[in-house]
């Protein structure tokens, strides 16, 4: 097992280096440097441009900037935002819990709804319910997040007034961030009204962000279940006279879960990517919205650091899934 984990971890290193290099390079390929972007119509005298570029270290050769950056990263120093002058790591850590909270709830929503829907669809294959689930999940999968979010806001927030339009907490409340997870912080502060408000604010973004993973989970569960349900051991179990529920819930589901767990793990990347749009629509103060602003301002350190940290998170989750997969399915860890 240990050797399996070590092999997995060693595979992460080149990915990590690749991500670092790519983000470093890509943002510099975007035309306009951080100084030019904010200059506006006036332009800037060439001497002053040189002076400012020098101060930001942008006048050094690219490879040197990259090596310095890597050296910093290896020491845990992601640099300082060019715009706010705060440490990139501290900015990320301030905002990341908001993204994590949203992503976790979206995943929970996707799993809680998607898993049973997939199971039922598989068991009642060909039924109206099955076609319904497949149709809805295909629609959900193809839904442009921006449009979907606005539609829900117009319907539930403006039309019915059931949910707040955007934000994370009603402005009446002020809860000091301790963990950064609003649901936890409000409970810790004993502010139950604020807790409800936070939950309220989570509903729409959770649904919007959870829509694509929900579709994926439902479809994946369905096809995995179908495959398993056709296996000999299921027929055997049925032949033994086991109750239908027991066959499906224990024998079939357990085996069908293996690919589903992988898919859920892989959805973390989708979730964090989708969070960028979802956060922008719902004015959600997470890393997605922060990254968009960093791109617009050409805030190189913030963007590099942000992407790197997100990529690290995704890699960590994937690693965890791989390991979990090994635990769930011993054949995998033995075959390597």
């Amino acid at each position, binding site marked *: 097992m240990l050797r399996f984990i070590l092999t997995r971890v060693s595979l992460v290193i080149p990915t990590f280096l690749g991500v670092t290099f790519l983000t470093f390079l890509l943002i510099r390929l975007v*035309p306009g440097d951080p100084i030019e*972007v904010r200059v506006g119509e006036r332009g800037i005298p060439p001497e002053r441009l040189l002076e400012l570029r020098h101060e930001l270290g942008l006048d050094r050769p690219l490879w040197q900037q990259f090596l310095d950056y890597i050296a910093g990263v290896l020491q845990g120093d992601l640099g300082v935002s060019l715009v706010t002058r705060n440490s990139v790591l501290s900015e990320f850590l301030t905002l990341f819990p908001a993204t994590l909270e949203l992503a976790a709830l979206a995943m929970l929503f996707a799993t809680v709804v998607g898993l049973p829907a997939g199971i039922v669809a598989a068991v009642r294959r060909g039924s109206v319910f099955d076609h319904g689930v497949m149709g809805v999940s295909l629609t959900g999968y193809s839904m442009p997040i921006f449009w979907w979010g606005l539609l829900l806001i117009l319907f539930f927030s*403006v039309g019915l*007034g059931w949910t*707040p339009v955007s*934000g994370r907490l009603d402005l009446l409340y002020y809860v000091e961030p301790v963990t950064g997870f609003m649901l936890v912080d409000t409970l810790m502060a004993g502010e139950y009204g604020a807790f409800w408000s936070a939950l309220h604010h989570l509903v729409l973004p959770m649904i919007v962000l959870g829509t694509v993973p929900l579709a994926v989970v439902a479809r994946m569960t369905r096809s995995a279940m179908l495959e398993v349900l056709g296996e000999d051991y299921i027929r055997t179990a049925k032949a033994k006279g086991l109750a239908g529920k027991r066959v499906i819930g224990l024998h079939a589901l357990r085996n069908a879960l293996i690919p589903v767990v992988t898919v859920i793990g892989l959805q973390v990347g989708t979730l964090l990517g989708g969070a960028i749009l979802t956060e922008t629509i719902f*004015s959600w103060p997470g890393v997605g*919205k922060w990254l968009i602003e960093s791109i617009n301002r050409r805030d190189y350190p913030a963007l590099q650091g942000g992407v790197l940290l997100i990529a690290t998170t995704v890699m960590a989750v994937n690693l965890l899934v791989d390991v979990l997969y090994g635990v769930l399915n011993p054949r995998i860890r033995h075959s390597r």
Partner: protein
Amino acid sequence: MKRILLGAGLGVAAALALAAPAQAAKTLVYCSEGSPENFNPMVNTTGTSFDVSLPVYNNLVQFERGGTKVVPGLAEKWDVSEDGLTYTFHLRKGAKWHSNNDFKPTRDANADDVLWSFNRQWKKDHPFHKVSGGAYDYFNDMAMPDLLKSIEKIDDYTVKFTLNKVEAPFIANLAMPFAAIQSAEYADALQKKNQIDKIDQAPIGTGPFQFVAYQKDAVIRYKAFDQYWGGKAPLDNLVFAITPDAAVRYAKLKAGECHIVPYPNPADLEAMKKDSAITLMEQEGLNVGYLAFNVTKKPFDDVRVRRALNMAIDKKAVVDAVYQGAGVPAKNPIPPTMWSYNKEIEDYPYDPERAKKLLADAGFPNGFETDLWAMPVQRPYNPNAKRMAEMMQADLAKVGIKAKVVQYEWGEYRKRLQAGEHQMGMLGWTGDNGDPDNFLHVLLGCEAARPGGSNIAKWCYKEFDDLVLQAKRTTDTAARTKLYEQAQVIFKEEAPWLTVAHSVVHMAVSKNVVDYKMDPFGIHRFYGVDLKQ
């Protein structure tokens, strides 16, 4: 950093949270469009960031609410010497500083604060010069380092500024956001604690609203400052709810989650007008969008060609199509909200026949080929340069001119235009200090016609330049007005630009809001605003 910042406002914030459910306090929620860089207008460069620092600070002088006129601020009055080189400011007594958990002021604002604030931006050896990046863009852009000879403290409440040359717009510069006054005492206190960065993150000012807390990218809270020298604001609390998407801002306004919304989607304007719960305010922005003819290149060195192009393009149709109600055709290079705007000027009519004749006179009976540069990005004065260029291209084709649309990435675009690589190029300008000099000298003066300068027509016309330079050296506003009016006449005759449009800025405001005034500079100010309960 974040923790400290929040800690600073925590006491007040807790009080705010407790007080809020009682509904007694008047809290105005402004759905702002983005997150600020920090809370110091000296180092800020965007309207979004000015908006968040302006409630906190005062300047020596300030623009009147909703106008470009300069009125007293921390300086009660000021004298200008005969030669126009010395400005003596007499400071207001009893202007109180805000306080927070780390800082309790022991004195009122005085001359030391004024010196401290200007020296921070001006002197490279000032202990706070490097804080928050130390790029004082506006201080430098307004040429303050060249302009200032000395700033002296005469006594605790008198400060003397001496200039190197006569510059009438100087007083308007001091009303710009960058010239805010920070507390020297607060700076000292922070320096002792080794927390100098905090000065721009947990701001202390003398302004009408006191900073309470900033939750990054989400909410900024202020409360009215009881001891404000101008009298406590009618509001009790001011909250900025950061909402980057325009459609969502409108939804929040409709759902009652905010009271004031900037930058609505043009597509929503009609619906907003019909909504009885909303007042849609509009004002011409302090800007101009134009098409500059590079007079150093053929055939635009010939004034007949420039005039012909002015007549060949159906300006009204272009403005209607591109701005969709959010712009008015421009005839002068300065906007109508600015003093000295010459109403008497008549614009060139749309007349393709006369244009053709003029072109023939100039030796181009069959037209010619040229380029037409268009911005790749949306700007406040031009929502869609590409579309505008295509419409102009079609109009020009009717008089035989074949124009090729050229686009570059924004930074590159501006640089190349300023270098004068184009034949015809679109650009625009948003005013800084409300002074006509800021348009006429900066965009059309000879000094700016050098390669790399912002006069992208590269038009240096002595008669015009003399008038504008003379106006710079005249401190009497009535006399300056005459000079600028005359300069506009010459501009129109010589036609270095096709003046396209002034954009119209909209604000959607809930009917509960009382006495919100739009600011010609495009900044959002909340002192004096009230809420119906």
